[in-house]
């Protein structure tokens, strides 16, 4: 069952243009000039219930604008949105009970209060009855292991604990869908890992559908089964994670250390990336040349050490952003 | 000195961009002036011609001038920005830079208010002339002396403000102390001249910053005499010396405290 349906969604912004200097200022007051920018340009997709979806793209690609339209903050310039059967721009309040939002850069918690008090406040906002709220907090506390710091003021928590509380706070009303806008921004690797576990757990145990935007490839790789990549307001890819990887897995990076220098020509399917004294770094298109072929070309007796690896996901995504075929370095 | 002049000029040019904001700021000034005009008209409404030596025309001009000085030289840099710098520890970064923080603030402040103050003075003159007519016995020859006291008044005001803001080194929020200063100037220093107070209070008020910041320049504009100029000017120089010493002592102590506590 699809929980989010987006059809031909559009959002256009007008941006005021201003020339430099005083003359420019005066001119922009008297006769302002505008330029129209399509922040979101005719995108369509669906999200299934219980899915973890990564919605990624470079800065200014239209990620946040899309999230804002899905949550009812912004109205679309065109197209249709249905979130949990609700049209966000028509029934904002009704939708609010069904969704949770965490914006990594914006804090919603009261920093001088304990997480416990904060949860109670959010409970009141979402009309959770008083007799239920205690149970709910208890439940969340145990599921997400907040026992240690549930009674410590938020300002005394570490950044990681804080983000954990931010996310848990957005679950107080049992939302069907959670929108996470860069939840791991600015966190260290250990904490990132923690947050990812939490998100996974939430998805598994509570069945929450998760709509995630991130710049962090790790988030995407470890959490999501499906990825939508947007750039310049358009969807440039909508595929499963395994397809994404598989598609680019026929390319391998081979690094070899040799006893002496071996001359290797650029042939079809082989691309020499780096050549240094007795070392070589080659990209191989395994559809055109097998690894065995290449090793033979190198003369096996001379090989001291060898390393074969896949192209890192980060590079794959970067090149998709750029709209080019994947080429490393 | 050259770098401070540069800061002054840069801020001044930057502020040319905000002329619309200044113009909109006049709304408030008009309203306050309107209230005071009505108030004094009411007080002078019976056949009273002169109150404590002031005609209604002089009274209105007095209020107008002090309010121009007040509105024209208000600036968040002196109040919020310094406190913010201290609270957030930003000041620690400024200490390492090759300039004097206090002088930097003063140059920036003067750069920001120059245009504003000039515009307020022009608007003030227009309002005054159209409501109560030009000041009688005003002699253009006195302008240089008056200008000197106006500039000194503005500078003293900014240094006193800085002194108050620096309290943030010791107390988190210095705003309440600014209120006290605001109120002293506004209530006692702008609405009526010192002569309106009972005789025994006048010498006390003459010792407060009111005498050098608002009363002095305004008095010279509406009723100039070389004797009062000398009085006011000497008082201003005294104030300048004292307030600068206070600021540098407080600032150095505060910075030391910051270093000990590591911000």
């Amino acid at each position: 069952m699809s929980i989010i349906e987006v059809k031909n969604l559009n959002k256009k912004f007008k941006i005021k243009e201003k020339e430099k200097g005083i003359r420019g200022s005066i001119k922009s007051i008297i006769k302002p000039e505008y330029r129209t920018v399509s922040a979101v340009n005719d995108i369509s997709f669906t999200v299934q219930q219980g899915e973890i979806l990564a919605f990624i793209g470079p800065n200014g690609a239209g990620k946040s604008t899309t999230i804002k339209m899905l949550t009812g903050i912004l109205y679309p310039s065109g197209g249709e949105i249905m979130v949990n059967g609700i049209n966000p721009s028509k029934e904002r309040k009704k939708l609010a009970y069904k969704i949770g939002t965490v914006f990594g850069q914006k804090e919603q918690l009261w920093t001088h209060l304990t997480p416990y008090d904060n949860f109670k406040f959010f409970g009141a906002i979402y009309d959770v009855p008083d007799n239920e709220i205690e149970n709910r907090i208890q439940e969340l506390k145990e599921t997400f292991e907040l026992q240690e710091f549930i009674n410590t003021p938020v300002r005394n928590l570490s950044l990681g604990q804080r983000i954990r509380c931010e996310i848990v706070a957005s679950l107080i009303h049992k939302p069907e869908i959670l929108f996470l806008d860069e939840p791991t921004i600015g966190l260290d690797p250990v904490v990132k890992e923690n947050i990812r576990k939490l998100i996974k757990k939430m998805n598994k145990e509570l069945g929450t559908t998760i709509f995630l935007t991130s710049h962090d490839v790790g988030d995407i790789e470890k959490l999501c089964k499906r990825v939508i990549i947007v750039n310049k307001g358009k969807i440039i890819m909508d595929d499963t994670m395994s397809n994404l990887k598989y598609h680019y897995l026929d390319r391998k990076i081979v690094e070899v250390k040799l006893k002496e220098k071996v001359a290797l020509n650029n042939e079809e399917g082989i691309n020499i990336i780096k050549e240094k004294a007795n070392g070589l770094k080659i990209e191989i298109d395994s559809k055109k040349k097998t690894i065995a072929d290449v090793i033979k070309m190198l003369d096996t007796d001379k090989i001291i050490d060898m390393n074969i690896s896949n192209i890192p996901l980060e590079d794959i995504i970067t090149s998709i952003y750029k709209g080019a075929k994947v080429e490393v370095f | 000195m050259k770098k401070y002049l540069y800061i002054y000029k840069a801020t001044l040019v930057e502020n040319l961009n905000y002329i619309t904001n200044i113009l909109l700021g006049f709304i408030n000034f008009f309203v306050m002036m309107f209230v005071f005009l009505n108030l004094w008209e009411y007080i002078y409404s019976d056949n009273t011609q002169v109150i404590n030596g002031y005609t209604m025309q002089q009274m209105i001009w007095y209020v107008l001038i002090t309010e121009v000085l007040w509105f024209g030289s208000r600036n968040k840099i002196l109040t919020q920005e310094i406190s913010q710098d201290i609270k957030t520890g930003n000041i620690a970064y400024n200490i390492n830079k090759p300039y004097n923080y206090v002088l930097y603030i003063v140059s920036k402040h003067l750069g920001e208010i120059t245009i504003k103050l000039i515009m307020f003075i022009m608007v003030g003159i227009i309002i005054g002339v159209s409501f109560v007519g030009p000041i009688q016995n005003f002699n253009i020859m006195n302008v240089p002396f008056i200008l000197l006291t106006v500039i000194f008044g503005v500078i003293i005001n900014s240094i006193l403000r800085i002194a108050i803001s620096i309290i943030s080194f010791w107390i988190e929020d210095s705003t309440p102390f600014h209120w006290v200063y605001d109120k002293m100037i506004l209530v006692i220093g702008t609405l009526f001249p010192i002569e309106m107070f009972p005789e025994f209070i006048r010498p006390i008020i003459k010792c407060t910053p009111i005498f050098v910041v608002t009363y002095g320049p305004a008095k010279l504009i509406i009723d100039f005499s070389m004797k009062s100029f000398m009085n006011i000017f000497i008082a201003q120089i005294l104030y300048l010396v004292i307030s600068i010493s206070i600021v540098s002592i407080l600032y150095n102590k505060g910075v030391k405290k910051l270093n000990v506590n590591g911000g």
Partner: protein
Amino acid sequence: MLMEVKNQIKVMFLSLKYNIMRQMTNKVTFITNIVFMILNNASFIIQWIILFSLKNEIGGYTIKEVILLWGMAASVFGLSRILFNKAFELSELIINGKLDTFLVQPKNVFLSVISSETKISAIGDLIYGYICLLLYGITIKNVILFTFFTAIGAVILTSFVSIMGSLSFWIVKGDIIADSLSNIMINFATYPGNIFKGIVKILLYTIIPVGVSNYMTVDIILNFNLVNFFYIVIFAIVILLLAFYIFNRGLKRYSSSNLMNSRI
């Protein structure tokens, strides 16, 4: 509907409680803020003592009535800023796209926004208001009327500044205009209404309703008048509804906006 109102009020009070708790974490700042605000207000007594030494009455008021007028102005302003401080900063929130957080909550956006912050020094204003009432003279009737009109005045003032703030949905430099007009309301509140004449006086009882929230209310405490009493109450209801209406109209524009750079 009733449930919704109840829940909204619950959130508003929690928000007030937490705001005050936050400020109290720094006790010195909390207390200096309140005490200095009281002193700050009290300083105006000096101004009036001087003015009354020049003339026996001003606008028909003696110092006693002026103290009551001051008290009303302070308590109205205080209550409004304790409960609805963000109404005074609405422009800034609109211009910088800060309403987003409130739009994802299932509550009335207008009420949630304006009640999301408390100004601590405003507690000093409210206390000062009652000190003035004490100086004027306390009777049961005075206390009831003063309290009632403080609440009504706060509704009028909050609605007025909200409407001014909502202008920023449409006007680019709306923040400065809103600030200025809100200041007008406050500046006029402490001077006897009778020193103003003509068109200005009409303005003060309609578009800039300081006449209704302060002059009329003080006059009723001085001399009870039923017709004026109902005029004030009805005026408060109308301007409150207008504030809701204008904010909601603006909010639609905010959400369908295609102008604000900061919101991409």
